[in-house]
Protein backbone atom coordinates (compact mmCIF):
# COMPACT_ATOMS: atom_id res chain seq x y z
CA UNK A 1 0.00 0.00 0.00
CA UNK A 2 1.35 3.40 -1.01
CA UNK A 3 2.08 5.66 1.92
CA UNK A 4 0.36 8.99 1.34
CA UNK A 5 2.28 12.18 2.05
CA UNK A 6 1.08 13.49 5.39
CA UNK A 7 -0.51 16.92 5.61
CA UNK A 8 0.86 19.53 8.01
CA UNK A 9 -2.23 19.02 10.17
CA UNK A 10 -1.48 15.31 10.61
CA UNK A 11 2.22 16.01 11.26
CA UNK A 12 1.27 18.56 13.92
CA UNK A 13 -1.11 16.14 15.63
CA UNK A 14 1.52 13.37 15.55
CA UNK A 15 4.07 15.75 17.06
CA UNK A 16 1.75 17.02 19.79
CA UNK A 17 0.47 13.58 20.78
CA UNK A 18 3.83 11.87 20.25
CA UNK A 19 2.45 9.38 17.73
CA UNK A 20 5.19 7.78 15.72
CA UNK A 21 3.71 5.29 13.31
CA UNK A 22 0.82 5.30 10.80
CA UNK A 23 -1.94 7.67 11.81
CA UNK A 24 -4.86 5.35 11.10
CA UNK A 25 -8.61 5.58 11.75
CA UNK A 26 -8.44 4.13 15.29
CA UNK A 27 -5.61 6.44 16.37
CA UNK A 28 -7.44 9.40 14.84
CA UNK A 29 -10.65 8.65 16.73
CA UNK A 30 -8.80 8.17 20.04
CA UNK A 31 -6.74 11.32 19.52
CA UNK A 32 -9.92 13.27 18.77
CA UNK A 33 -11.51 11.94 21.96
CA UNK A 34 -8.47 12.80 24.10
CA UNK A 35 -8.18 16.23 22.47
CA UNK A 36 -11.85 16.98 23.06
CA UNK A 37 -11.56 16.06 26.75
CA UNK A 38 -8.48 18.25 27.09
CA UNK A 39 -10.28 21.06 25.29
CA UNK A 40 -13.27 20.95 27.66
CA UNK A 41 -10.93 21.24 30.63
CA UNK A 42 -8.86 24.02 29.05
CA UNK A 43 -11.80 26.14 27.87
CA UNK A 44 -13.40 26.09 31.34
CA UNK A 45 -10.10 27.14 32.91
CA UNK A 46 -9.60 29.79 30.21
CA UNK A 47 -13.08 31.21 30.83
CA UNK A 48 -12.55 31.32 34.62
CA UNK A 49 -9.13 32.94 34.16
CA UNK A 50 -10.48 35.63 31.85
CA UNK A 51 -13.41 36.42 34.17
CA UNK A 52 -11.14 36.66 37.21
CA UNK A 53 -8.73 38.96 35.31
CA UNK A 54 -11.50 41.43 34.67
CA UNK A 55 -12.57 41.43 38.31
CA UNK A 56 -9.09 41.49 39.85
CA UNK A 57 -7.73 44.24 37.59
CA UNK A 58 -10.15 46.71 39.18
CA UNK A 59 -9.32 45.58 42.70
CA UNK A 60 -6.38 46.67 44.83
CA UNK A 61 -4.14 43.67 44.06
CA UNK A 62 -0.54 44.33 43.12
CA UNK A 63 -0.24 43.80 39.36
CA UNK A 64 3.18 42.15 39.49
CA UNK A 65 1.88 39.60 42.01
CA UNK A 66 -1.14 38.99 39.81
CA UNK A 67 1.08 38.40 36.80
CA UNK A 68 3.15 35.87 38.78
CA UNK A 69 -0.01 34.04 39.91
CA UNK A 70 -1.30 33.96 36.33
CA UNK A 71 2.03 32.70 35.02
CA UNK A 72 2.28 29.88 37.56
CA UNK A 73 -1.35 28.79 37.27
CA UNK A 74 -1.06 28.73 33.45
CA UNK A 75 2.12 26.68 33.71
CA UNK A 76 0.40 24.29 36.13
CA UNK A 77 -2.61 23.85 33.86
CA UNK A 78 -0.38 23.19 30.85
CA UNK A 79 1.53 20.62 32.89
CA UNK A 80 -1.73 18.91 33.92
CA UNK A 81 -2.96 18.79 30.34
CA UNK A 82 0.32 17.47 28.97
CA UNK A 83 0.36 14.82 31.70
CA UNK A 84 -3.20 13.80 30.82
CA UNK A 85 -2.32 13.54 27.13
CA UNK A 86 0.89 11.59 27.81
CA UNK A 87 -0.88 9.21 30.17
CA UNK A 88 -3.77 8.62 27.75
CA UNK A 89 -1.40 7.97 24.84
CA UNK A 90 0.69 5.63 27.03
CA UNK A 91 -2.39 3.72 28.28
CA UNK A 92 -3.72 3.20 24.73
CA UNK A 93 -0.21 2.49 23.36
CA UNK A 94 -0.78 4.93 20.52
CA UNK A 95 2.92 5.86 20.53
CA UNK A 96 4.05 2.33 19.70
CA UNK A 97 5.70 1.61 16.37
CA UNK A 98 5.31 -1.68 14.49
CA UNK A 99 8.31 -3.16 12.72
CA UNK A 100 7.31 -5.90 10.25
CA UNK A 101 10.70 -7.61 9.89
CA UNK A 102 14.40 -7.12 10.71
CA UNK A 103 15.01 -4.83 7.73
CA UNK A 104 12.05 -2.62 8.69
CA UNK A 105 13.27 -2.57 12.30
CA UNK A 106 16.73 -1.34 11.28
CA UNK A 107 15.22 1.23 8.94
CA UNK A 108 13.06 2.58 11.74
CA UNK A 109 16.05 2.68 14.09
CA UNK A 110 17.98 4.69 11.49
CA UNK A 111 15.11 7.19 11.16
CA UNK A 112 14.91 7.40 14.93
CA UNK A 113 18.63 8.22 15.20
CA UNK A 114 18.21 11.05 12.68
CA UNK A 115 15.16 12.35 14.49
CA UNK A 116 16.94 12.24 17.88
CA UNK A 117 19.89 14.24 16.50
CA UNK A 118 17.47 16.75 14.99
CA UNK A 119 15.63 17.07 18.31
CA UNK A 120 18.88 17.63 20.20
CA UNK A 121 19.80 20.38 17.75
CA UNK A 122 16.42 22.10 18.05
CA UNK A 123 16.55 21.82 21.84
CA UNK A 124 20.05 23.34 21.92
CA UNK A 125 19.08 26.25 19.64
CA UNK A 126 15.86 27.08 21.49
CA UNK A 127 17.44 26.90 24.94
CA UNK A 128 20.48 28.94 23.88
CA UNK A 129 18.23 31.61 22.40
CA UNK A 130 16.12 31.72 25.58
CA UNK A 131 19.10 31.92 27.93
CA UNK A 132 20.80 34.44 25.65
CA UNK A 133 17.70 36.66 25.91
CA UNK A 134 17.61 36.24 29.72
CA UNK A 135 21.34 36.96 30.06
CA UNK A 136 21.01 39.99 27.79
CA UNK A 137 18.11 41.34 29.90
CA UNK A 138 19.84 40.73 33.24
CA UNK A 139 23.35 41.54 32.06
CA UNK A 140 24.76 42.32 35.57
CA UNK A 141 28.36 41.43 34.58
CA UNK A 142 28.14 43.88 31.64
CA UNK A 143 29.35 41.37 29.08
CA UNK A 144 29.38 42.23 25.38
CA UNK A 145 27.04 40.59 22.85
CA UNK A 146 29.80 38.37 21.46
CA UNK A 147 30.80 37.26 24.96
CA UNK A 148 27.17 36.35 25.71
CA UNK A 149 26.80 34.38 22.46
CA UNK A 150 30.08 32.49 22.76
CA UNK A 151 29.95 32.00 26.52
CA UNK A 152 31.72 28.61 27.00
CA UNK A 153 29.85 27.81 30.21
CA UNK A 154 26.36 28.36 28.73
CA UNK A 155 27.22 26.58 25.47
CA UNK A 156 28.74 23.54 27.20
CA UNK A 157 25.84 23.31 29.69
CA UNK A 158 23.19 23.37 27.00
CA UNK A 159 25.19 21.10 24.71
CA UNK A 160 25.28 18.46 27.45
CA UNK A 161 21.55 19.06 28.04
CA UNK A 162 20.77 18.69 24.33
CA UNK A 163 22.79 15.46 24.04
CA UNK A 164 20.96 14.07 27.10
CA UNK A 165 17.59 14.98 25.58
CA UNK A 166 18.59 13.28 22.33
CA UNK A 167 19.69 10.10 24.11
CA UNK A 168 16.60 9.96 26.32
CA UNK A 169 14.32 10.43 23.32
CA UNK A 170 16.19 7.78 21.32
CA UNK A 171 16.09 5.09 24.00
CA UNK A 172 12.54 5.86 25.07
CA UNK A 173 11.23 5.64 21.50
CA UNK A 174 13.39 2.59 20.72
CA UNK A 175 11.66 0.74 23.57
CA UNK A 176 8.34 1.41 21.83
CA UNK A 177 9.30 -0.25 18.54
CA UNK A 178 7.49 -3.62 18.49
CA UNK A 179 9.31 -6.27 16.46
Amino acid sequence: MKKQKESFYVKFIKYLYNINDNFDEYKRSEVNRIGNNAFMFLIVYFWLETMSFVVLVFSSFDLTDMLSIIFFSNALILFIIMSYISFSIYKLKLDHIDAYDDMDYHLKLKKLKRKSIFMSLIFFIIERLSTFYLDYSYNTDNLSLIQLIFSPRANINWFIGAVSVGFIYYFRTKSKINK
Partner: protein
Amino acid sequence: MNKQKESLYIKIIKHVYGIQGYFDEYKKQEVNRIGNNAFLILFSLFWIELLATSFASLRVDSDLILEILICSNLLIFFVILWYLAIAVSRLNLDQVEAYDDNDFHLKLKIAKKKAIFTFFLDFIIPRIFFFIFDLLDKDNELSIWQNIISPKENIVWGIGAIFMGFTTYLILKSRIKK
Protein backbone atom coordinates in the same frame (compact mmCIF):
# COMPACT_ATOMS: atom_id res chain seq x y z
CA MET B 1 -35.85 1.50 21.70
CA ASN B 2 -35.30 2.54 25.32
CA LYS B 3 -33.63 5.94 25.63
CA GLN B 4 -30.67 5.49 27.98
CA LYS B 5 -30.16 8.03 30.74
CA GLU B 6 -27.39 10.36 29.63
CA SER B 7 -24.25 10.63 31.76
CA LEU B 8 -23.11 13.97 33.16
CA TYR B 9 -20.21 13.97 30.70
CA ILE B 10 -22.56 13.76 27.71
CA LYS B 11 -24.82 16.43 29.19
CA ILE B 12 -21.81 18.76 29.55
CA ILE B 13 -20.69 18.11 25.98
CA LYS B 14 -24.20 18.72 24.64
CA HIS B 15 -24.38 21.97 26.60
CA VAL B 16 -20.93 23.24 25.50
CA TYR B 17 -21.53 22.44 21.82
CA GLY B 18 -25.23 23.38 21.77
CA ILE B 19 -26.24 19.89 20.64
CA GLN B 20 -29.76 18.62 21.15
CA GLY B 21 -31.52 15.37 20.50
CA TYR B 22 -29.81 11.99 20.20
CA PHE B 23 -26.08 12.09 20.83
CA ASP B 24 -25.31 9.23 18.47
CA GLU B 25 -21.96 7.98 17.19
CA TYR B 26 -21.83 10.39 14.24
CA LYS B 27 -22.38 13.43 16.47
CA LYS B 28 -19.88 12.07 18.97
CA GLN B 29 -17.29 11.60 16.22
CA GLU B 30 -17.82 15.10 14.82
CA VAL B 31 -17.83 16.70 18.28
CA ASN B 32 -14.55 14.95 19.12
CA ARG B 33 -13.02 16.17 15.86
CA ILE B 34 -14.20 19.76 16.39
CA GLY B 35 -13.08 19.67 20.03
CA ASN B 36 -9.65 18.35 19.10
CA ASN B 37 -9.21 21.08 16.47
CA ALA B 38 -10.26 23.71 19.01
CA PHE B 39 -7.83 22.18 21.51
CA LEU B 40 -4.95 22.38 19.04
CA ILE B 41 -5.63 26.08 18.48
CA LEU B 42 -6.18 26.89 22.15
CA PHE B 43 -3.20 24.87 23.38
CA SER B 44 -0.84 26.48 20.86
CA LEU B 45 -2.04 29.98 21.72
CA PHE B 46 -1.79 29.18 25.43
CA TRP B 47 1.85 28.14 25.03
CA ILE B 48 2.67 31.22 22.96
CA GLU B 49 0.96 33.41 25.56
CA LEU B 50 2.89 31.80 28.42
CA LEU B 51 6.25 32.16 26.70
CA ALA B 52 5.55 35.68 25.45
CA THR B 53 4.41 36.78 28.93
CA SER B 54 7.48 35.37 30.65
CA PHE B 55 9.89 36.96 28.18
CA ALA B 56 8.03 40.28 27.93
CA SER B 57 7.82 40.68 31.73
CA LEU B 58 11.61 41.22 31.79
CA ARG B 59 11.39 44.38 29.71
CA VAL B 60 7.82 45.69 29.78
CA ASP B 61 5.57 47.08 32.59
CA SER B 62 3.26 44.64 34.36
CA ASP B 63 0.23 46.92 33.68
CA LEU B 64 0.77 46.78 29.95
CA ILE B 65 1.32 43.01 29.92
CA LEU B 66 -1.83 42.47 31.98
CA GLU B 67 -3.90 44.67 29.66
CA ILE B 68 -2.59 42.83 26.59
CA LEU B 69 -3.23 39.47 28.30
CA ILE B 70 -6.85 40.37 29.12
CA CYS B 71 -7.56 41.59 25.59
CA SER B 72 -5.86 38.65 23.91
CA ASN B 73 -7.59 36.13 26.22
CA LEU B 74 -10.99 37.63 25.46
CA LEU B 75 -10.24 37.62 21.76
CA ILE B 76 -9.03 33.99 21.80
CA PHE B 77 -12.06 32.94 23.85
CA PHE B 78 -14.49 34.48 21.40
CA VAL B 79 -12.62 33.12 18.38
CA ILE B 80 -12.84 29.60 19.83
CA LEU B 81 -16.54 29.98 20.67
CA TRP B 82 -17.16 31.32 17.19
CA TYR B 83 -15.33 28.36 15.63
CA LEU B 84 -17.40 25.91 17.72
CA ALA B 85 -20.65 27.64 16.76
CA ILE B 86 -19.79 27.71 13.04
CA ALA B 87 -18.56 24.09 12.98
CA VAL B 88 -21.63 22.76 14.83
CA SER B 89 -24.01 24.83 12.72
CA ARG B 90 -22.37 23.80 9.42
CA LEU B 91 -22.82 20.11 10.25
CA ASN B 92 -26.36 20.71 11.59
CA LEU B 93 -25.45 19.00 14.84
CA ASP B 94 -27.63 21.43 16.76
CA GLN B 95 -30.81 20.44 14.93
CA VAL B 96 -33.63 18.72 16.75
CA GLU B 97 -35.82 16.23 14.91
CA ALA B 98 -39.55 16.15 15.60
CA TYR B 99 -41.17 12.94 14.41
CA ASP B 100 -44.78 14.14 14.39
CA ASP B 101 -47.02 17.02 15.56
CA ASN B 102 -47.16 15.77 19.17
CA ASP B 103 -43.39 15.47 19.29
CA PHE B 104 -43.05 18.95 17.75
CA HIS B 105 -45.25 20.53 20.44
CA LEU B 106 -43.41 18.62 23.15
CA LYS B 107 -40.08 19.94 21.88
CA LEU B 108 -41.49 23.49 21.67
CA LYS B 109 -42.49 23.16 25.32
CA ILE B 110 -38.95 22.06 26.21
CA ALA B 111 -37.59 25.04 24.23
CA LYS B 112 -39.82 27.40 26.25
CA LYS B 113 -38.57 25.92 29.53
CA LYS B 114 -34.95 26.29 28.36
CA ALA B 115 -35.62 29.91 27.38
CA ILE B 116 -37.04 30.68 30.84
CA PHE B 117 -34.01 28.97 32.43
CA THR B 118 -31.72 31.09 30.21
CA PHE B 119 -33.56 34.19 31.38
CA PHE B 120 -32.87 33.37 35.03
CA LEU B 121 -29.28 32.41 34.35
CA ASP B 122 -28.61 35.57 32.33
CA PHE B 123 -30.04 37.65 35.11
CA ILE B 124 -28.47 36.00 38.15
CA ILE B 125 -24.91 35.39 36.90
CA PRO B 126 -24.15 38.92 35.56
CA ARG B 127 -25.80 40.43 38.67
CA ILE B 128 -23.52 38.39 40.94
CA PHE B 129 -20.51 39.19 38.77
CA PHE B 130 -21.14 42.93 38.77
CA PHE B 131 -22.10 42.85 42.44
CA ILE B 132 -18.61 41.49 43.25
CA PHE B 133 -17.15 43.99 40.78
CA ASP B 134 -18.90 46.91 42.54
CA LEU B 135 -17.82 45.63 45.97
CA LEU B 136 -14.17 45.56 44.88
CA ASP B 137 -14.40 48.93 43.10
CA LYS B 138 -12.76 51.58 45.30
CA ASP B 139 -14.95 54.38 43.81
CA ASN B 140 -18.23 52.64 44.73
CA GLU B 141 -19.70 54.16 47.93
CA LEU B 142 -22.94 52.16 48.16
CA SER B 143 -23.56 49.59 50.91
CA ILE B 144 -23.91 45.86 50.19
CA TRP B 145 -27.72 46.02 50.51
CA GLN B 146 -27.93 49.08 48.25
CA ASN B 147 -25.80 47.23 45.66
CA ILE B 148 -28.13 44.20 45.80
CA ILE B 149 -31.44 46.08 45.41
CA SER B 150 -30.09 48.78 43.05
CA PRO B 151 -33.09 49.46 40.70
CA LYS B 152 -30.87 50.59 37.81
CA GLU B 153 -28.75 47.40 37.79
CA ASN B 154 -31.76 45.10 38.27
CA ILE B 155 -33.80 46.76 35.50
CA VAL B 156 -30.91 46.87 33.04
CA TRP B 157 -29.97 43.22 33.57
CA GLY B 158 -33.63 42.19 33.72
CA ILE B 159 -34.28 43.68 30.28
CA GLY B 160 -31.09 42.06 28.97
CA ALA B 161 -32.12 38.68 30.41
CA ILE B 162 -35.62 38.92 28.86
CA PHE B 163 -34.04 39.70 25.50
CA MET B 164 -31.64 36.73 25.85
CA GLY B 165 -34.45 34.39 26.92
CA PHE B 166 -36.62 35.43 23.98
CA THR B 167 -33.72 35.11 21.52
CA THR B 168 -32.89 31.66 22.92
CA TYR B 169 -36.49 30.55 22.38
CA LEU B 170 -36.51 31.75 18.77
CA ILE B 171 -33.14 30.08 18.04
CA LEU B 172 -34.21 26.79 19.63
CA LYS B 173 -37.52 26.88 17.75
CA SER B 174 -35.73 27.46 14.43
CA ARG B 175 -33.63 24.34 15.04
CA ILE B 176 -36.61 22.03 15.46
CA LYS B 177 -36.97 20.18 12.18
CA LYS B 178 -40.34 18.55 11.45
